[in-house]
């Protein structure tokens, strides 16, 4: 290396330096990177000025109301926001909703005369203020605390109090009352009555009962009139000229889902689970369907336990999406990219991720398949294409009875109501040609239609037998609407279960049969609705495999850990779903025990009884072929009691239901509960079945305790519930 020149050394040095910088870049530039420590919730800073000065903020935001909430668990905060929303929708008045901890109160006396202050105050524990209201209370109550006027006086300050507490506590609503008293003492003037909500049972009713009177007093004191605020939008919707297509949400529920970031699958990021099996469970399908679907969860990180629920994320059917797009005059623009911004983020958050498209919002994000609400019809009437349509909607929004007959019983969705009002043909395939376009601003649609929710099903498998598969048992919801003078009876399809039925047909390459022919039914014959089951960007379809977006919701509906405890399960119809999982769970345990301890391993197990019911053993008997095998594996510990309501009758001809079989087996049932410390589970219809079963249980237990159903029986049922030995998974 004698010939090395200065340039050689230079080149080498630069090379070494670059290599070193590259290798140690993390350490060298670490300071520049933001630390991943949680940042305290930033106080909304608006420009210069003292961030703790609420008067300045009100002036800046042209707000005439300031609402302070003393909240510990968030309830008072929710009511504060509701009051702000109502002030806006009723009177067009904007509010500043404040955590009192974040503001100073010296200038409370400077509140301009045309303004008012609201206090929404919770009382905690033994008559104490919530942590965030401690200083506020001290300032108000301490006579030596001076406001900017140099006195402890608030002459003429207009205020409203809503107080939250719990009647089972001694100092019910003490803080709200204290605020009221001390403000009155300082010369402030209360608007309306003081509201008091009892968190023990009637908070919501107490609030509703109080607020109308308060708003009357409020409008008089503030000199404002109702109806001034109807037009203030919550959101601003803009069409975006150009936007990178990969950043547009087409049905994804979160940024995580859009960018496919590694993470877990939950309600914000459902997992597209491939359908491995989809079959019909009813023996006879001429008027009903019940689908059994197995969802593959391999490599998803999703785990579940017997008794958990699976949330399935359906989309709205094609026909309803098209109908509403046409009625809103958005059909041509359906795929335009739109941005939505909240005009007051404290009061209303954009309910779904944006930017998105009109069609996506209607298909994936909002529930347009529900029966149209009465409130929204009134709000939409002013956008009617003609006076007749306007009068029609106004009539519906004011006349409860008419709304009930035409809309509720007729099961009309928003798109259909708009068509009906405009005189369009409801039974035709909707198109821009046969549907009148209304000029309804899209922000109203966004703020007044609730979000499309997942549909929850009780999982019908056990992870012990099926670790990578979740089984769903769903009866397909389909019924006829009640006809009226304007609309004929039509078939109404449940969104979630028909979405699953669609997936079943697609997964098996079947074609959907006609629902019914004209001769059989009053309703127009039709096919079941179609859905965009391939999902956003084809995410739910892979060659011939279809996927359903799902997440798991934990439940407490669980078997006792100890198999010695007797178990009684009552689940007619699809109420049997979780119990198939329960039985599988015990079968898995039995296999292991027998393997370990020999054939007598189940000798000391408690009895497992399943009370099942359906119409006929040849028509709708769910999992008919599986039960005998489970009984064999559980070595006589598992008994099944079946009520076939249209097959086996009493001598007098009346029907036999599960509760009747339970009563017939009362000796065993009472023994299992009282002596065996057994567990009882009820799953299915909440209204009639579950109630009847509970009554029968009370009768059985009352008799066994040598008393009556009403006294001893009910006491025993209550005790069982409190100890989580009687559990319900019911729906209405």
């Amino acid at each position, binding site marked *: *290396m004698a*010939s*090395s*020149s200065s*340039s*050689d050394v230079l*080149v*080498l040095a630069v*090379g*070494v330096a670059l*290599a*070193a910088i590259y*290798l*140690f870049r*993390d*350490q060298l530039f*670490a300071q520049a990177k933001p*630390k*991943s*420590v*949680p940042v*305290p*919730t930033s106080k909304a800073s608006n420009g210069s000025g003292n961030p703790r000065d609420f008067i300045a903020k009100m002036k800046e935001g042209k707000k005439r109301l300031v609402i302070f909430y003393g*909240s*510990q*668990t*968030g*309830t008072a905060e929710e009511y504060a926001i509701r009051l702000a929303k109502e002030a806006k929708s009723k009177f067009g008045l904007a509010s500043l909703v404040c955590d009192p901890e974040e503001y100073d109160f010296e200038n409370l006396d400077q509140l301009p005369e045309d303004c008012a202050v609201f206090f929404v105050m919770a009382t*905690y524990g033994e008559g104490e203020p919530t942590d965030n209201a401690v200083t506020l209370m001290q300032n108000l109550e301490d006579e030596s605390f001076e406001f900017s006027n140099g006195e402890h006086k608030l002459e003429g300050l207009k205020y409203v109090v809503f107080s939250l507490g*719990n*009647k*089972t*506590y001694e100092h019910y609503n003490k803080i709200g009352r204290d605020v009221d008293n001390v403000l009155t003492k300082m010369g402030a003037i209360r608007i309306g009555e003081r509201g008091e909500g*009892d*968190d*023990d*049972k009637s908070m919501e009713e107490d609030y509703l009962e109080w607020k109308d009177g308060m708003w009357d007093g409020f409008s008089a004191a503030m000199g404002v009139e109702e109806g001034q605020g109807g037009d203030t939008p919550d959101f601003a919707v803009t069409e975006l000229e150009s936007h990178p297509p990969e950043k547009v949400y087409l049905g994804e529920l979160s940024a995580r889902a859009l960018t496919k970031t*590694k*993470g*877990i699958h*939950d*309600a*914000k990021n459902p997992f597209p689970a491939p359908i491995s099996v989809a079959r019909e469970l009813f023996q006879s399908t001429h008027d009903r369907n019940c689908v059994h679907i197995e969802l593959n969860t391999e490599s998803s*990180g*999703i*785990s579940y336990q017997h008794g958990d629920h699976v949330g399935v994320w359906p989309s709205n059917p094609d026909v309803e999406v098209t109908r509403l797009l046409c009625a809103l005059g958005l059909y041509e623009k359906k795929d335009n990219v739109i941005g939505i911004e909240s005009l007051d983020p404290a009061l209303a958050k954009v309910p779904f991720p944006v930017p998105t498209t009109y069609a996506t919002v209607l298909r994936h994000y909002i529930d347009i398949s529900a029966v149209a609400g009465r409130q929204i019809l009134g709000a939409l009437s002013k956008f009617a294409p003609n006076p007749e349509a306007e009068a029609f909607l106004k009539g519906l929004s004011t006349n409860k009875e008419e709304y009930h007959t035409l809309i509720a019983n007729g099961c009309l969705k928003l798109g259909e109501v708009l068509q009906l009002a405009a005189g369009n043909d409801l039974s035709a395939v909707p198109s821009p040609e046969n549907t009148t376009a209304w000029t309804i601003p899209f922000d109203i649609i966004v703020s007044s239609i609730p979000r499309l929710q997942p549909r929850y099903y009780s999982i019908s498998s056990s992870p012990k037998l099926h670790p990578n598969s979740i089984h769903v048992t769903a009866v397909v919801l389909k019924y006829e609407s009640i006809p009226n003078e304007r609309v004929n009876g039509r078939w109404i399809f449940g969104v979630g279960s028909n979405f699953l039925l669609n997936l079943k047909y697609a997964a098996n390459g079947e074609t959907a049969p006609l629902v019914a022919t004209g001769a059989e039914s009053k309703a127009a014959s039709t096919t079941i609705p179609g859905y965009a089951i391939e999902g956003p960007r084809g995410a739910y379809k892979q060659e011939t495999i279809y996927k359903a977006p799902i997440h798991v919701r*934990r439940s*407490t*509906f*669980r078997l006792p*850990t100890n198999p010695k405890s007797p178990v009684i399960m009552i689940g007619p119809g699809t109420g049997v779903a979780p119990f198939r999982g329960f039985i599988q769970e015990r079968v898995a345990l039995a296999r292991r025990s027998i393997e370990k301890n020999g054939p007598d391993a189940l000798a000391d197990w408690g009895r497992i009884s399943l009370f099942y019911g359906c119409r006929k053993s040849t028509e709708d008997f769910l999992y008919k072929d599986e039960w005998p095998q489970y009984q064999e594996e559980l070595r006589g510990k598992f008994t099944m009691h079946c009520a076939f309501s249209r097959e086996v009758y009493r001598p007098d001809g009346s029907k036999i239901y599960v509760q009747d079989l339970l009563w017939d087996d009362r000796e065993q049932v009472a023994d299992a509960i009282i002596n065996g410390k057994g567990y009882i589970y009820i799953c299915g219809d909440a209204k009639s079945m579950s109630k009847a079963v509970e009554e029968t249980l009370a009768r059985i237990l009352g008799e066994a305790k040598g008393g009556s159903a009403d006294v001893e029986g009910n006491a025993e049922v*209550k005790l069982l*519930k*409190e*100890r*989580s030995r*009687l*559990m*319900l*998974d019911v729906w209405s």
Partner: protein
Amino acid sequence: MAAVDFNLPISEILHKGTVKSHDEVAKSPGAAALVNAALPREEYVRFLMMLWHIYGAIEEALERHAANVVLQPTYNPILLARKSSLSADISAVLQVPESSWQAHPIYTSLAASPPPALTAYTSRITAIESSDPSLLLAHSYARYLGDLSGGQVIKHRTAKAYGLDEQSNIGLSFYTFRQLGSSVPATSQGDMKKIKVWFKAGMDAGVGDDAKLKEALLREANTAFELNAGLLNDIVIDEKEQDPVVPILQPVPAQKTYSVTAVFSVITAICLAHFLLVVGGFTGAKGYSKLLAAEQWVASLLS
């Protein structure tokens, strides 16, 4: 400990007899940090992991002694048990499936060298389980009643601080209970109070008039508060000596010193660079002419 009237029911004895230890715990900086949700995310997760161990110990012991007459009236794992909800929350906050969070560096380092406060807590549970399982009641009292009371405040703050969604409850199930005798989530103070009233009545029924047992339970309840205080002391991190924060979503521990591999790769890179320079004829006059040629080429590209 002030004089205690052991004729009172056990729920009252424990309430009155633990005021001091309760307040000491409540006043500790660790409790303040927890209540104000002021812990860094990874420290919060680490705390949940310690709780997961503790609830595991308590709940498994309760399960084994479910038939114990003292424990039986309050034995209600479906209502009370927290171990599985802690696991779900850890998974949600870390964004790692429930089946694999135990491989996360925060957990592996906790498991490799468990803090003495954690070991003390779990060993105490094991010890009383073999000596006198009835005393487990003092531990369920100290934990569950706390979760039903102060836990509800922590829930709201925690949700705000770590950006968790109270509506969906993801990551917050530890603080969430069902209504007594129902599967509906408990939402109000009243719902919580009913569970507490039920729990206290169950304690009173299980313990009865046994004065000796009452005395032992009071002692054990105070021990439980001390153990919790120890746990909370462990989460307070000294700002000055604070280790660099482990990035939560990238399970790679930050390097404090240059690792052997890093140093070795620098040396290798230098050697390789030198070798290439020499072999490729980039040294001396020859090299200089090549450098000039390269400069011209670059200039021609840019012009």
